[in-house]
């Protein structure tokens, strides 16, 4: 069965691109435009993995990740943080917020897929 991936991204083009590429790789993809909607979708759809942009409106990705990890019901859903801020500090900040892994935009699909598969396989 196809893994359900939730993309939380405010930029329409980034969202469309990543969504199309993942669908072609056989994933079932849903999307959310900001951190608050992302959290709602995590609770309602229970995706297998979340790709979370960090610079989001309404509720940023760091806050949404921290809240997701503090919520026992969805804490086990792996989150990969995505950001255009390619700073080491951003990576640390994302991991401190509770993200399971980190990747920068523009994404290298092969690298991202490796990280996704590792998390999906390790998921209890």
């Amino acid at each position, binding site marked *: 069965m196809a893994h359900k991936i939730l993309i939380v991204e405010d930029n329409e083009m980034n969202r469309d691109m990543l969504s*199309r590429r993942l669908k*072609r790789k056989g994933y079932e993809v849903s999307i959310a435009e900001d951190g608050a909607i992302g959290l709602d979708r995590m609770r309602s759809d229970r995706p297998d993995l979340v790709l979370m942009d960090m*610079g989001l409106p309404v509720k940023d990705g760091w806050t949404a990740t921290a809240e997701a990890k503090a919520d026992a019901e969805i804490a086990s859903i792996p989150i990969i943080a995505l950001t255009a*801020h*390619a*700073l080491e500090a951003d990576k640390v900040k994302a991991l401190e917020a509770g993200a399971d892994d980190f990747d920068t935009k523009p994404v290298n699909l092969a690298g991202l897929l490796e990280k996704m598969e590792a998390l999906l396989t390790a998921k209890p």
Partner: protein
Amino acid sequence: MFKKLSYYLFILSTTSRLFPYLLIIGLTSFVVMIGMNAYFFGLFSAEALKAEGVDNVFGAGFVDTLWWSFKHLLDPGAFSENYGAPFFVILFALFNSIMGLIITGALIGFIVSAIQTAMDNARVGAATVREKGHYLILGWNRKGAAILILFAKLKVQERIVILTEHNLDALRVDLRQNSRALRGLRVLPVQGAIGSSSELRRVASKHASHVMLLAESKAGVQSDLTTIKALTLLNAGQEGMSGSAQLVAEIVSKDNVGIAQVAAKRSHPIVSTSDFISKSMVQCARYPGYSAVYSELFASGDFVIDLFTPHGLEGVLFSEVATAINHAVVLGISWHEETSGKRRRVSVLNPEPDYDLGEGDELIVLRKQNESPELILDSKFQTVEETRALSIERPNITEVLVIAANQNLALMVGELLNHAVSDLRVVVACRDPEVEKKSLDQRFNAAASKRLKVEFVEFDLVESSGLERLNPHLFDVIFVMADESDAYIDADSRTLLILFLLQELELRLGVEKFPPVVAELLNSESKDLCLETPMTDAVVSTELLSVQLAQLVRDPYLETLYNELLNAGGIEIGIREISYYIDSDEPLPLSLLTQKVLEFNETVLGFRRKSGEIILSPDKRVLERFEAGDHVIVLAQQVYL
């Protein structure tokens, strides 16, 4: 009774267009009847019949009497023919002749007046438009002429109907001034309110193929209310416009975009002037020279963005196809997607080089008007195996000086903050700091951002020495905004004066590097006057926005592309030194440069020579030699370092 009759006459005269003619017919009949009374005063007596003008051809009865009376009414000269007739007959003839002169005079007056009214109506465009498939421009402002010039360049054959509340004489002056550039266009100006459904019907909005709403200005102030009302009318059922018609609307304030989108049922592009100007100014600050590239790309009319669908490319990587297509720059990919039963076109710029083209994918290409994309058949597809991160100095603006202020200030500060990597300090030097601070606080909660510090200082051109105290040379960028607050001083003149002051200051201080200066101008002709000043970029809304509107009404799918290019956090146009990609001064084919740039996940649009010359969509087979100071113009994902 008399009062009642007068009232009915008044009603008839004010409501019936036929009243003047009915009055003449009635009066004529009345006078003819009076004249016929001459019969009882010896009209056909032996004495009267001696006169030349009295005939009894039909037995001196009713017909002869009618003819006699009518003849005198229509022909005053006939009076002399009654010489020798009885006195009363002559009296009736005189009465009819005089009344005839009055009635004929009135008739001529009515006819002249009707012709004059028809000519006036034609001049103000009060006619009903009987067109199908026409272009309809609703509203008129200074962007209108630039839009028409682009339509002329695009060789639009359909009639272009312009409906505006403005005086058409002013519009005609605009058209006359650009008559050369508008040659070949069929333009019909019509005067009327764009927010009236009957007026929209009059200009056949229902049958228009393309509708463009421009913000009408009243007393120099542009309002979005009329535009939103017109949008509502156009999208309300069958009366407005055809479902297949393409529409684009200009909204002045970004705050009104949401409501305009609701009025447009979220199915048409809405362009916000203030949003566009503020974002363009920030992009110019980030990449000095940006406005020239943007103008060349979108305002010159030399380039078009369209879709190209080569066959047999399934499975081919984006990097391969990007290097193999000549006479065009492959900007991105487009496809159709079904979401909740709705089919929408998705467009993505600058995809990753390893994106493999699939079924339904079309290429978004930038090409010259007169060129068509072609596959370089002798070229081997170049695969970019691995992308690299470009370690370049990214724009980082932290200290900003804004001279003069207008309604775009809050948006611009917000946009600067969106791009800011670290803390941002903005100094606003304006005529009335308190008012501007209040206005900024209302529109943008500066205090909410811990990273932002906005300071207001008083600055007026009458105290130009105050500019030096601001130490403009110590800022990362200087913005000069169009100040239209004083009706007696032209905003561009004020901007020009500030630029001259900055020039004088730059020369006097003798600083090694003066910050980039981005100015907002209202008229593109003013740009030429600023060539010797420190201005690095000019944002002229009439120039850039008009082209965007003209292209969106023809290709609505470009909306996401335009938005993406200006928004923070997505794909942007970058201008980078050639040395980041190429370290050789040997001539090299441009296909190689394309590939080198793709390695950094970027797309080459063209290059800018040290001299300032901009070359876009160059021939990939041509060998070019680059030198220090040359820049590559790329599409790139914004990365903040």
